[in-house]
């Protein structure tokens, strides 16, 4: 899996490839995230292309978040669809992750 990345100031914006992020791709996602987690402290996952996410994808997000938190960083989410928002609310992960509408807003929130 290759991740499209760009920077807004010192914040790393990661485009998560779609349309599905599930048990068949969540391991690959974690592997692709590893170098980013090693080099960056401020990360935003852009979910604009993701149409479906399952609990294993959610689990991989949690792994990334914990790794960043341990290094004094943070990871935020943006451009999340309603159906995925429903999943986050169902398992209360909207309280664990900060979710913003746009990448710019997410980047700005780090300041």
């Amino acid at each position: 899996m290759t991740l499209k990345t760009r920077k807004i100031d010192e914040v790393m914006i990661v485009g998560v490839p779609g349309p599905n992020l599930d048990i068949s791709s969540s391991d690959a996602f974690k592997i692709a995230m590893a170098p980013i987690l090693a080099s960056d402290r401020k990360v935003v996952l852009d979910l604009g292309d993701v149409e479906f996410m399952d609990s294993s994808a959610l689990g991989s997000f949690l792994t990334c978040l914990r790794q960043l938190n341990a290094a004094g960083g943070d990871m935020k989410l943006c451009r999340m669809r309603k159906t995925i928002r429903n999943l986050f609310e169902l398992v209360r992960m909207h309280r664990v992750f900060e979710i913003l509408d746009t990448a710019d807003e997410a980047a700005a929130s780090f300041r």
Partner: protein
Amino acid sequence: MAEQPVRVLLIDDDRDYYLLTRELLWEIEDSTYILDWSNDYASGLEAARSNAHDVILIDYMLGARTGIDLVSEALASGCRAPMVLLTNQTDKSIARAAVSAGAADYLIKGRIDAYALDRSIRFARERRRAEDAIEKARTREIEIGANIQNALLLSEPPEDVRGLDIAAVSRPSQRVDGDFWCFARYGDSELDVLIGDVMGKGVPAALFAAASKMVFGTNVLRLILLLRQYARLPDPEEIVAALHHSMTANLARLGSFITLCCARFEVRKQQITFVDAGHMRTLHYRPSNNRITYLEGDNLPIGVSSTELYTQSRAAFEQDDVFVFYSDGVTEARDGNGAMFGLEGLEATVRATAHLSAREIADSICDAAMKHANHRGTADDVTCLVVRTVDDGNEWPLQTTSMEVTSAPHEIDSMRRLVDWFCDKQAIDPPLTAYEKSTLVLAVSEAASNILHHAYWGTRDRRVQVTLEAYKGEVRVELTDWGRRFDPNDVRAPDFDGTRDGGFGVYIISQSVDDYSYSRDALGRNRLLLIRRAHGRHEAEPPPPH
């Protein structure tokens, strides 16, 4: 090795004769006898009942009563020792009466010497030993037969055939019968019932019955495979013909035959198709018009004529009808006067109990037949199998579709797409909202992930089946796999604070559908049923309090 001393009981009111007998027994050189003596009827009976003796010698004249009375009474109260009657008279009729009452032998008092007494005692004991051995063998045979019967002949009827309530009950007779039954299922609402009776009794009949069941099962399977290319099921007449062809040569060699009825219930067509091969005619009761008819064909039993052409007949049924398959043990149960329970008894019981469950009807029939026979035990097994056509409260699906995929992660997307596509079916009306559909897709995805992970432990070449059914305002999805047992109800609740990466799947499923249930079916499969109803909801309910 020295022989064990033989304990002899003498029942005689004459003390001199006791002394004489003791003398005679002393004279016998190569056996040791211990002689006990009772000098009247009552104490003699008491001693005989205690079963402490190897042989009992009983005088014919015992006060007001006779030794023959004592023989009968002692046997009736469980006396096991052989009894020899002693008489002064040479009257042959007394001798005959003694033997028919159960005495092992009789001796004429004046003519007894030590040799004759010893010989009589030895023969009586020898005969008892032989009788015991036969009795033991007979009990053993009954045990073997009963084990065969329980393990092989009387399988439990399926419980989850849609629209059919089925129960089978058998009350065993003194000896094992060749009664058997078996079932073959096709889909969720079609069932074949085969009930048969192998002529004869005991282990041979039971073994033949077991073989018949096996041959039935094998033939059904072979016929299904054979007819697969024509996209139809084997007919009952074809199944019976195959059974006939497979078994006739063996049956003829053993001089036996099998009566049977093979009936197919097709619930959606409300139709029964049957072959009657000389079995007791199947009773069909229709409560709506209170009429009883019998399913009747005119085929010969299996194994009688190799040229027999088996022909099926059809009958229609409606909801709440009752079918009773039964053995001759039911209708031929006799009361003390020899009168049979008969079809009258059967019909009366069915009419009185037809509103009850199949199990209750079957129990009532067997109870009534046993009661008619005054619980004295019947000559034949009392066996009956009841099929009641019921409204199981389930509608038939308006549309169904199914798919099988391998247990590879990328296949989960195919399942999601199938569910997504199916949820837009017209038949579901009112339709699921986009939100309701997305939650069902999520639940199916989580359930499939669980199967891959927990049932198949990541093995990618196994199979997962998904079946979708559309009902009015409702979609049901069933996921089936052959993996390890995985009951979502055993999974602990997840942590909601982000400290654990996994454990959300089952919780998500439970929150994303209206109902779900897990079962492990008779074929050893995991089955998970998910039900999503249309509520017109466009977004999630507020999440439950933390």
